């Protein structure tokens, strides 16, 4: 059976799980390990962590978090952010990650993909493509968590990354990310139709129906962030640490407009009812 994976995506800044819109304006939501455990128990197929400030500081600070999570979460853990060398990958795997996601360092030095695939195997190397649609209809790739414009065509880059040995491609739509308007199906379809490795669609999920759209656009796996995090917050006590970041959002108990929170369980139920093959517990 060819199943579709449902991945919980956690953007992390320092000790906190954060969420922005278009990868900006980060709100503090709570402690990532607490959310992780909830997603594991709900039946998430994989957990994907992104250190959103790693490229800026040129280091990934998630080693301790990953070691902690790996002790209770026996599903694949993927970690991205600031991974720049074979040594960085080694350290992250040693901390307990199963795969690493690379964007900035791979665009700057594509041969890192083939080197890393040779040492660790293709399936350990995920290439993260952050793309934004241009006025002429093309998609360009960005780095440093959507901050830096590269001028690289995102579709061609994804194809090149797959040819160099990436085991899978996670495609983030910067335009749709955090908005709840749905996945960028044009972007997903363009990339998935040209690469022979699995494609993870990320950015924009706001209601279960968006899953069907992404599957029709040939996504092989789906990553969810806002919808899951807001579902957790709606059903659990806050786990936010007060010391750091913008917690105003949590304190004011603000509501969400475009996003209707739903859980991993809701996702699996929707997929099951719509004959989309997926893992059930």
């Amino acid at each position, binding site marked *: *059976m060819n199943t579709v994976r449902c991945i919980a995506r956690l953007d992390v800044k320092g000790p906190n799980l954060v969420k922005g819109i278009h990868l900006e304006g980060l709100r503090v939501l709570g402690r990532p390990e607490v959310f992780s455990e909830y997603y594991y128990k709900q039946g998430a197929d994989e957990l994907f962590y992104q250190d959103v400030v790693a490229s800026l500081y040129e280091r990934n600070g998630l080693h301790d978090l990953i070691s902690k999570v790996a002790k209770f979460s*026996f599903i694949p853990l993927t970690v991205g952010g600031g991974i720049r060398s074979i040594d960085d990958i080694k350290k992250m795997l040693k*901390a307990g990650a199963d795969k690493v996601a690379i964007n900035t360092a791979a665009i700057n030095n594509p041969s890192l993909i083939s080197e890393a695939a040779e040492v*660790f*195997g293709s399936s*350990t190397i995920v290439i993260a493509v952050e793309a934004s649609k241009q006025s002429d209809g093309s998609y360009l790739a960005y780095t440093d968590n959507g901050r830096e414009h590269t001028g690289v065509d995102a579709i061609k880059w994804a194809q090149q990354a797959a040819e160099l040995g990436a085991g899978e491609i996670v495609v983030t739509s910067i335009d749709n990310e955090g908005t709840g308007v749905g996945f960028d199906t044009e972007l997903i379809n363009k990339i998935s139709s040209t690469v*022979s490795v*699995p494609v993870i669609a990320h950015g924009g999920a706001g209601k279960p129906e968006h899953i069907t759209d992404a599957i029709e656009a040939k996504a*092989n796996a789906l990553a969810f962030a806002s919808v899951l995090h807001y579902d957790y917050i709606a059903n659990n006590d806050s786990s936010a640490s007060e010391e750091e970041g913008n917690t105003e959002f949590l304190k004011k108990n603000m509501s969400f407009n475009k996003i209707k929170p739903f859980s991993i369980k809701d996702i699996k139920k929707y997929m099951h009812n719509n004959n989309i093959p997926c893992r059930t517990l």
Partner: protein
Amino acid sequence: MKNKDNFKLTIIDYGSSNLYSVINACKTFGIEPEVSSDHNTIKNADAVILPGVGAFNEAMSNLQRLGLIEPIKEFAQSGKPFMGICLGLHLLFERSAEFGNTEGLGLIKGSIKKFPSNMEQNFKVPQIGWNLINKADNNNWEKSPFSTIKEGAFMYFVHSFYADAEDPEVILSKTKFNDVTYCSSILKNNIFATQFHPEKSGDLGLEIYKNWFSNIIQ
């Protein structure tokens, strides 16, 4: 039968593998494995795990370089519990088509082949994800560490190549991916091996470790 405190489990270290999750799974059951490439440690172990991520030919040349081919074969033939995971299943076979033709350990008859990809049907390779394990046409399931697992359970797979076993009697489970139905685990006397990663297959995967241990530790 030994108890947890004097039981010696060795995880074979031959370079490229990511061993952390296998170690973690063992620790969940109070077992502290030793990670080693030392011949005597392997020889004197009560049970051995051969893990593996990466390429077949590189793994075989690493085993060769470390002089581990004979110690692994001897251990597997000693009758003591032996578990292979992912590439650790592939290596047990006679040969692989991965990057040319490479000879394997030859403990199980058959070869390793590549999944076909088909863009029109959106059949991607590698398989990265969860898939079902179903019983083979024999009674291996009940006498294996799957005995408490329901047929059709989901396990986590990561691979581009699959095992084509010649002897149907060694097949423990079958799985279908991209129109290929293949051998997703084997059981041959003391040799137990899975294509999927039980240590990454949630609580059901851990149950497989638990069952394997409960048969060999008091």
